[in-house]
């Protein structure tokens, strides 16, 4: 645990922000870097969707889109959204901000490791962005970087961009490995007295489980990336069949990481949604422990599904049986998790605040992503759908809820804590409806083009008579118009964000009347977080407890005459231990 918030050591001026080891400042660094990268990722998608809708025409603010820049834009878009938006915002920004506040300590266990993590992350973001400007341009071999296309400059024609992409991704991994150490250690060791394992808020559980999952899955890919780097720069032949290598080896290593990675970003998003739902529905989460168990089960099973990305990649076709089965098995805990979330609403007193709208929209939209995944996990139908826009639409119905919908739920929910002011509800709702409606209008048409065989990563359909049909083109144009609308609505968000920073109503410590520890701290919390370190007396979601005046019963509130009232909450029974530094596990 850190005890180094002695004000005397603090640098001043801008350095105070750049050189800070305060977990909240590092969270903001991740948040704002992630938001900036989202703008870049959004710009790339604007350019390539304009090209798809109006092939060959100059795109405003960009110009004509060549085949090579199309590939580079798609590749960067995918890489940025996953590695430089979803991960930093969901895991690093919320993890850093929330974990110490929610487990009731003053900072991360290793604040300097935390700072190093961000610095490496920032470097990786700069490197990736810079790759647009090198000779040959940015890497265009898709975010999956399959060799031999990714290994050889002769094949991909972006020798510098390809290597920069690879190094940037590798640095990003290092940053998240360092960050994960902190999340896990802090949660395990620095909890407030009385906080037992099942008193930990779900979002903290989810970020910790995601960090463990990331650490466990990324190792093989790092090894694979080193081999890829050697193939690229010193001409080894790990993936070159002419020299005894095997290109499919990379696919196994990539997806062995890549599939768990989906859950690495999903779980924190589900965690955020759980917190928001509990607060704004005034409800205890339905079957708290089941949520934790299903998250663990999902993580474990996610190690056994990777080859469902490779059904038609030239693996032994009999293997498809195995991976079809595991893939459908993983649908069970995920479905269970969604059921539990839906069940949480039963008996609630739901306020449709902006954060709650986002949280509910997460469930509504994620269901689309979940059910369409079954078409792809079933080997027989994946033959047809593989690498079509059906896949693109499917995974955006998972990723968009994860990265953006849950992200907005979290930002609007914790904004008062972060900045001490409320966001504007009316602007929040305009932004919400504008974004959600246009999101669906982007991707519902793409399910149809995908079902009609539209395949992905094609910059111009004119060469394909069966795809170059007017009704398909109209759907593509519709998706692009919807994207333009969505981008326009983001202006509302940024305006609301900026205006509320100064002009929003003053929030006070606990504007939502919530129960978890972060709402005990002042808004915004000072360095060190709590004036007096809190003690935990009950589970995190005690809403609507009968026979109490308030409909919420904070974790930190002593239970009347000491030890008289039975201990409520997920942990169940027994008097709250007090005084112990870290709660014993049971």
């Amino acid at each position: 645990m850190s005890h180094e918030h002695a004000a005397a050591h603090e640098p001043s001026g801008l350095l105070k922000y750049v050189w800070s080891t305060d977990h909240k400042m590092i969270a903001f660094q991740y948040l704002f870097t992630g938001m900036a990268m989202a703008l870049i990722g959004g710009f790339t998608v604007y350019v390539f969707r304009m090209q798809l809708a109006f092939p060959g025409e100059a795109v405003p603010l960009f110009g004509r889109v060549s085949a090579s820049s199309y590939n580079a834009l798609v590749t960067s878009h995918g890489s940025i959204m996953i590695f430089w938006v979803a991960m930093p915002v969901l895991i690093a920004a919320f993890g850093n901000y929330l974990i110490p506040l929610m487990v009731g300590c003053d900072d991360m266990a290793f604040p300097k490791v935390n700072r190093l993590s961000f610095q490496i992350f920032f470097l990786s973001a700069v490197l990736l962005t810079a790759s647009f400007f090198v000779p040959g341009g940015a890497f265009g071999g898709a975010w999956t970087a399959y060799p031999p296309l990714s290994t050889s400059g002769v094949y991909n024609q972006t020798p510098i961009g390809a290597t920069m992409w690879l190094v940037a991704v590798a640095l990003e991994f290092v940053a998240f490995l360092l960050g994960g150490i902190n999340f896990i250690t802090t949660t395990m060791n620095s909890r407030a007295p009385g906080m037992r394992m099942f008193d930990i808020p779900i979002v903290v559980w989810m970020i910790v489980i995601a960090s463990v999952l990331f650490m466990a899955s990324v190792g093989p890919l790092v090894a694979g990336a080193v081999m890829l780097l050697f193939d690229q720069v010193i001409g080894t032949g790990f993936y070159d069949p002419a020299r005894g290598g095997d290109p499919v080896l990379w696919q196994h290593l990539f997806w062995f990481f890549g599939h768990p990675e989906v859950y690495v970003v999903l779980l924190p998003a589900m965690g955020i949604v759980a917190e928001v739902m509990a607060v704004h529905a005034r409800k205890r989460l339905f079957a708290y422990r089941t949520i934790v168990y299903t998250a663990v089960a999902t993580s474990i099973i996610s190690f056994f599904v990777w080859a469902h990305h490779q059904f038609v990649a030239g693996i032994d076709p009999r293997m498809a049986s195995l991976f079809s089965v595991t893939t459908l098995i993983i649908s069970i805990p995920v479905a269970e998790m969604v059921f539990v979330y839906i069940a949480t609403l039963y008996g609630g007193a739901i306020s449709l605040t902006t954060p709650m709208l986002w949280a509910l929209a997460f469930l509504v939209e994620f269901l689309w992503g979940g059910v369409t995944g079954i078409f792809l996990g079933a080997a027989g139908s994946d033959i047809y759908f593989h690498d079509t826009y059906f896949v693109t639409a499917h995974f955006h119905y998972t990723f968009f809820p994860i990265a953006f919908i849950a992200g907005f739920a979290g930002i609007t929910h914790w904004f008062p804590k972060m900045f001490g002011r409320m966001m504007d509800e009316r602007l929040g709702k305009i932004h919400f409806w504008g974004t959600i409606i246009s999101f669906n209008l982007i991707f519902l048409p793409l399910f149809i083009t995908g079902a009609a065989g539209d395949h992905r990563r094609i910059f111009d359909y004119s060469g394909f008579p069966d795809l170059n049909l007017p009704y398909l083109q109209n759907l593509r144009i519709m998706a692009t118009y919807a994207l333009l609308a969505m981008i326009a609505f983001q202006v509302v968000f940024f305006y609301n964000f900026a205006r509320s920073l100064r002009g929003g109503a003053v929030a006070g410590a606990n504007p939502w009347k919530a129960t978890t520890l972060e709402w005990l701290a002042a808004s915004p919390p000072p360095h060190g977080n709590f004036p007096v370190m809190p003690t935990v007396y009950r589970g995190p979601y005690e809403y609507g407890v009968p026979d109490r005046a308030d409909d919420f019963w904070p974790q930190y509130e002593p239970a009347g005459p000491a030890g008289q009232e039975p201990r409520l909450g997920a942990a169940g029974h027994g008097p709250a231990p007090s005084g112990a530094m870290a709660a014993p596990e049971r």
Partner: protein
Amino acid sequence: MISWFVPQASTFAADVDSLIFLILVIVGAWFLLAEAVLFWLILRFRKREGVRSKYVTGDVKSEKRWVSYPHYAVLVFDVVIVVAALRVWNDVKVTDPVPEETVRVVSQQWAWTFVHAGPDGRLDTADDIKTVDDLYVQQNRTYRFELHSKDVLHSFSVPAFRLKQDAVPGRMIAGWFKPTLAGDFDIQCAEICGIGHGLMPARIHVQTATAHQEWLREHGVMPALAANTGAAGQGGAR
């Protein structure tokens, strides 16, 4: 369903489509049910003045069954889907029927070369017919294809057949199809293969028996072509 958009031009196209339809019915029903329950709960349990939320833990059996019963149902439907999916998969990808003819498909940045067996019906003989970006096959004839790549990954995708298979350099990957519908259909490269990935279209021409025999007679014995056949796996240059 899929046949609204793309014709069914091979024996297994209808099987794939029925599988997709089966999944659509099952997950569609689930989807509608889940969304309906979700929206109903949102409307039913809106905050009302003076009404407190219920204290439901979800930890007791009588409450848990609200999620555990649907959960068992998911399991049952999963089994149905897996069985159906693997039957189709095995038919298309695992148990190849005895072919009547073999065709070689060679992909490269950014073109397809097709080696047809020619009038004698056998590959690697003097009468092989090599074409670029046009594949000619006969209706109702069972083909084995041998897929090669000369450089990076490509993918041999014939949507009208519901067939897709990646090509991997250094390997020969075999598969089969039996065209049932005469006509011309897209062959698309479905794996990103560099700058020209979007510029790698080809067509498959499914011909009736008579038309195909005609085509064979016209192209089958051109000495210039016959001279440079036989380079298995190297494919023909354009």
